[in-house]
C-alpha cells in the first residue's frame, strides 16, 4: 500500500506539527518491511520491498533496465501487492553495481543484469529462497554473505548523514516523513529558541564538512548575533574536488534531510531566504532537490508559514556554471550575485557581511544533513561519536585502485587502514598500497607507513594531508607521485581565478617546474625552487584555493622525495608513468611471437610475424604502455625501464 498526500478540496493539506506526526504514523507501517531482519527460510514473506540503487554509477551499469524488468515480471505474475520495486539513492557499494537489497531480511544482490529479474521473482519473492548466485561473496572464503548488514563493507560503517541511503525513495516525501522526517524542524520551530538550537549544535561539536572544519554552532551564533532584517542561509553543493561525490550522493539519496537542516539553520539565525548552490555537472541531484522542494512546499514544509508556525523560508536552487573556485564561500556568494566567482578578503566574514552584503550562513550539504539528527537526538548523542576534537561521523568517497569503490561513512578517528583494507577490501589486483590522497587539490598524500592514522581533522592534518570534503583516492604502486603532484597543480592553475598574483602566477610557475621534471628536463635545485614557491603561494594567496594549492607538492615531497630525485638526477620514473622517461623493449628470449602487442599497438610501432620474435621500432613508439599491459602474464616479454 502506498499512501498518497491527503487532499482536501483538491489542495494539498498544509501540515502542522500534529498532522505531520499523524501522517508519519500512518506511513510508518508501510515502510516497516524495510527495517525488518526477520526471515524464515523457505517461507516467503507476505510482502517484499525491492530497493534498487538509482545513483549515476548504477544507472550507468543499467540499473534502470533491471528495475524495468523487475516491474515487468511483477506485473506479468500479477503480484503487485506482494512486491514493491523502489528506486533509491546511492546504496554506497558502487563497485558492485547495479545493486539491490530485498527486505524483509536485507538480502544484498550485486552485479545484476536485467535477465536476473526472473530468477529473483520466482525464487526469492515467490518461494522465499534468496538467489545465492547473485549474492556478495566473502573475499577470503568465497562463501556468499546474504545479508547486507553482515558484509564488511557495510558492517564497519556508521551512518548518520547517509542514514536513509538505499532505504527510501528520494523522490517521495512520504518516505522521508514516514521515517521521522521534518520532526526535527517541527521541534526547532515550535519548542526551541535560536539560542537553544545553537546550544545544541555547539554541544554536538559538529564541524563544517566542506573541508575547513569550522565549528558549525559558532558560525551560526555569529550570524545570529549580526544585526539586520535580511539574512541568508546558503548551502554549498558545489562539490568541486575531483574524486569526491559525497554531497552528490546525499542530495540524490536524501534531499529532504538537506532542506530540513537548512530550515533549522534559518530559524537559528533568523533568515527567510536561502540558496542551494549546486554544480551543473550534477543533473540528477539538481532534479531530486527541485522535486523535494516542490513537495515540501505543497505540504507547507517550506515557503510561507512553515508547519503553521508563522516562520517562513524561501529556498532557491542556483545552478553553478563550472568554476572550482566557487566552492570557496565568498566566491560562491559573488557567483550567486551574478558575477565572476572571485573571492574577496575576509574579514568581514559572511556571518557579518555575506551575500549582497547581508549576514549569511553557508554550510556544506553533508553538514546540513547531520543537523536534523542532532536536533532530534541531542547534541550529546552526536558528540558521543568520534574523537575528542572531531565529533560524529564523516562521509568519504572511496575511489582509485581499491576493490570496494564506494561511499563510506565512518566515525571520526577510524584508522585509514580500516577504511582502505577492511571496508575497501584492499588494493585492486593484489598490488601494494602506496598512498591515499585526501582532500583533493588542497590535500595531500598519506603513505603506507602512516596507514594507521585516524581519519579526523587533527590527525590527518598532522600527517600532511587535510580532511577536505572527503575524497579519498587510493593509489597503488603504479602511481608516480611526481605526476600526481603535477596533475593537481595543473588543476589549480586552471582553476585559479586570477585575482591575486601569488596564486595566479605561483601555480603556473610551480606547474612549469613539475612539467619540466616529469619530462626529464629537471634541474638540480628544482626541488628547492618548488619548496620556495610553495611557501610563497601558501602565505600570500587571498583564498583557500591558493593557500592550499601547494599541499599536494609539499606532501609528496615529504614522503616521496626520492621519486623527485630519481626523475631529476637519474632521468628515471620509478613507477613507469612519465612517458618521456620510460623505455619499452621486447625481450627476445621471452617473446613467443603471439602477436598480441603488435595487434594492439596504436601506432604500428611493433614489427614481427607469426613465429618471428617481435621488436619495437623506437622511433615510432609513443610509450603508451599498451604492449606492456597486453603482453600475456605468462610471457612478460615487455621490459620497461
Amino acid at each position, binding site marked *: 500500500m502506498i499512501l498518497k498526500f491527503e487532499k482536501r478540496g483538491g489542495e494539498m493539506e498544509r501540515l502542522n506539527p500534529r498532522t505531520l506526526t499523524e501522517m508519519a504514523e500512518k506511513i510508518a507501517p508501510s515502510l516497516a518491511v524495510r527495517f525488518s531482519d526477520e526471515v524464515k527460510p523457505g517461507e516467503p514473506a507476505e510482502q517484499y520491498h525491492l530497493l534498487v540503487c538509482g545513483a549515476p554509477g548504477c544507472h550507468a551499469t543499467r540499473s534502470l533496465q533491471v528495475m524495468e524488468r523487475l516491474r515487468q515480471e511483477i506485473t506479468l505474475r500479477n503480484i503487485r501487492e506482494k512486491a514493491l520495486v523502489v528506486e533509491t539513492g546511492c546504496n554506497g557499494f558502487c563497485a558492485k553495481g547495479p545493486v539491490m537489497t530485498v527486505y524483509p531480511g536485507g538480502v544484498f544482490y550485486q552485479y545484476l543484469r536485467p535477465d536476473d529479474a526472473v530468477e529473483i521473482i520466482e525464487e526469492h519473492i515467490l518461494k522465499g529462497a534468496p538467489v545465492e548466485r547473485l549474492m556478495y561473496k566473502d573475499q577470503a572464503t568465497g562463501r556468499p554473505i546474504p545479508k547486507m548488514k553482515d558484509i564488511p563493507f557495510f558492517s564497519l560503517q556508521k551512518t548518520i548523514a547517509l542514514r536513509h541511503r538505499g532505504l527510501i525513495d528520494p523522490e517521495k516525501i512520504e518516505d522521508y516523513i514516514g521515517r521521522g522526517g521534518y520532526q526535527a524542524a517541527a521541534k526547532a520551530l515550535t519548542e526551541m529558541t535560536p539560542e537553544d538550537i545553537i546550544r545544541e549544535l555547539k554541544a554536538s561539536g559538529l564541524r563544517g564538512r566542506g573541508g575547513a572544519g569550522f565549528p558549525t554552532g559558532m558560525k551560526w551564533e555569529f550570524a545570529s548575533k549580526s544585526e539586520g532584517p535580511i539574512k541568508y542561509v546558503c548551502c554549498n553543493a558545489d562539490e568541486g574536488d575531483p574524486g569526491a561525490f559525497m554531497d*552528490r550522493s546525499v542530495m540524490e539519496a536524501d534531499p529532504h534531510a538537506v532542506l530540513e537542516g537548512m530550515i533549522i539553520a534559518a530559524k537559528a539565525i533568523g533568515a527567510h531566504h536561502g540558496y542551494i548552490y549546486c554544480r551543473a555537472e550534477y543533473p540528477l541531484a539538481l532534479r531530486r532537490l527541485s522535486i523535494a522542494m516542490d513537495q515540501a512546499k505543497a505540504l507547507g514544509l517550506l515557503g510561507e508559514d512553515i508547519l503553521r508556525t508563522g516562520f517562513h523560508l524561501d529556498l532557491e536552487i542556483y545552478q553553478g*556554471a563550472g568554476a572550482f573556485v566557487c566552492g570557496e564561500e565568498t566566491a560562491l556568494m559573488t557567483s550567486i*550575485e*551574478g558575477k*565572476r566567482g572571485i573571492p574577496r578578503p575576509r574579514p568581514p566574514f559572511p556571518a557579518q557581511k555575506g551575500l549582497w552584503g547581508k549576514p549569511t550562513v553557508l554550510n556544506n550539504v553533508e553538514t546540513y544533513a547531520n543537523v536534523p539528527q542532532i536536533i532530534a537526538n541531542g547534541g550529546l548523542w552526536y558528540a558521543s561519536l568520534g574523537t575528542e576534537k572531531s565529533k560524529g561521523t564523516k562521509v568519504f568517497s572511496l575511489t582509485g585502485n581499491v576493490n570496494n569503490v564506494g561511499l563510506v561513512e565512518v566515525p571520526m578517528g577510524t584508522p585509514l587502514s580500516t577504511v582502505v583494507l577492511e571496508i575497501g577490501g584492499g588494493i585492486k589486483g593484489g598490488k601494494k598500497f602506496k598512498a591515499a590522497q585526501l582532500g583533493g587539490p588542497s590535500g595531500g598524500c598519506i603513505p603506507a607507513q602512516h596507514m594507521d592514522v585516524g581519519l579526523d581533522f587533527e590527525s590527518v592534518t598532522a600527517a600532511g594531508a587535510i580532511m577536505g570534503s572527503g575524497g579519498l583516492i587510493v593509489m597503488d604502486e603504479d602511481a608516480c607521485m611526481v605526476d*600526481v603532484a603535477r596533475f*593537481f597543480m595543473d*588543476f589549480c592553475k586552471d582553476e585559479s581565478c586570477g585575482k591575486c598574483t601569488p596564486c595566479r602566477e605561483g601555480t603556473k610557475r610551480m606547474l612549469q617546474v613539475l612539467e619540466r621534471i616529469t619530462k626529464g628536463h629537471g634541474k638540480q635545485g628544482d626541488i628547492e625552487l618548488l619548496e620556495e614557491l610553495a611557501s610563497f603561494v601558501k602565505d600570500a594567496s587571498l583564498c583557500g584555493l591558493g593557500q592550499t594549492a601547494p599541499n599536494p607538492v609539499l606532501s609528496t615531497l615529504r614522503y616521496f622525495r626520492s621519486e623527485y630525485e630519481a626523475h631529476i638526477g637519474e632521468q628515471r620514473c620509478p613507477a613507469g608513468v612519465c612517458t618521456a622517461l620510460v623505455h619499452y623493449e621486447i625481450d627476445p628470449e621471452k617473446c613467443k611471437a603471439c602477436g598480441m602487442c603488435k595487434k594492439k599497438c596504436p601506432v604500428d610501432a611493433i614489427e614481427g610475424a607469426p613465429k618471428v620474435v617481435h621488436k619495437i621500432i623506437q622511433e615510432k613508439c609513443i610509450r603508451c604502455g*599498451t604492449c606492456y599491459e597486453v603482453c600475456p602474464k605468462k610471457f612478460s616479454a615487455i621490459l620497461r625501464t
Partner: protein
Amino acid sequence: MNQMKLRERLLEEFSQEDLERVGKIFERYRGKPGALIPVLEEVQAVTGYLPDLLQEWIAVGMNVPMARVFGVVTFYSFFSRVPKGRHQIKVCLGTACYVRGAGKILERLESELGVKEGSVTPDRKFSLQSLRCVGACVLAPVMMVGEDTYGQVQPEKVKEILATY
C-alpha cells in the same frame, strides 16, 4: 552596432524562433538581481553556444554592460564561445579517472577525431572537451558522449564507441 543590425547578423547563425525564445528568457529575468548566470545558462541551452555577437544581444536585453557579460562567459567553463558538435564528448580528468588512465583516453580521442581538446570536428559532428570529475568515480575512467556515460573505458575501445554515433 545598433540593435537592428545586430539582429540581422544573429539571424545568419540562429533561427527566428531561437531568438524569440531568447527574448522570452530576458523578460523572465529582467530586473532580478544576480540573474545573469541563469540567463546565460538558459540561452546556451537554446542556442548551443554563446558567440560574441549573442553576448552583445544579451547585454542589451538584460541591460548590463557587455564587459560584464563577456567577463562571466569567459570565467565559467560551462559557457562556450565556440559551437559544440552534435555529439559532445566529455572526458573526465578527475583524480580517480586520471590515476586510472583517462589521459590516454583523451589522447586517443584526439588522434581518432583529429582535433584537439576544446574544439569541434570540421563537420560539427563531434566536439571534444575534458572536465574535472562528473562524480562517477566508481566507473573510472569515464567518458560521456552526449547523455551516454561509458565507464572503465580502455583506449582500444574508443574507436568502437565513436563508431556507434
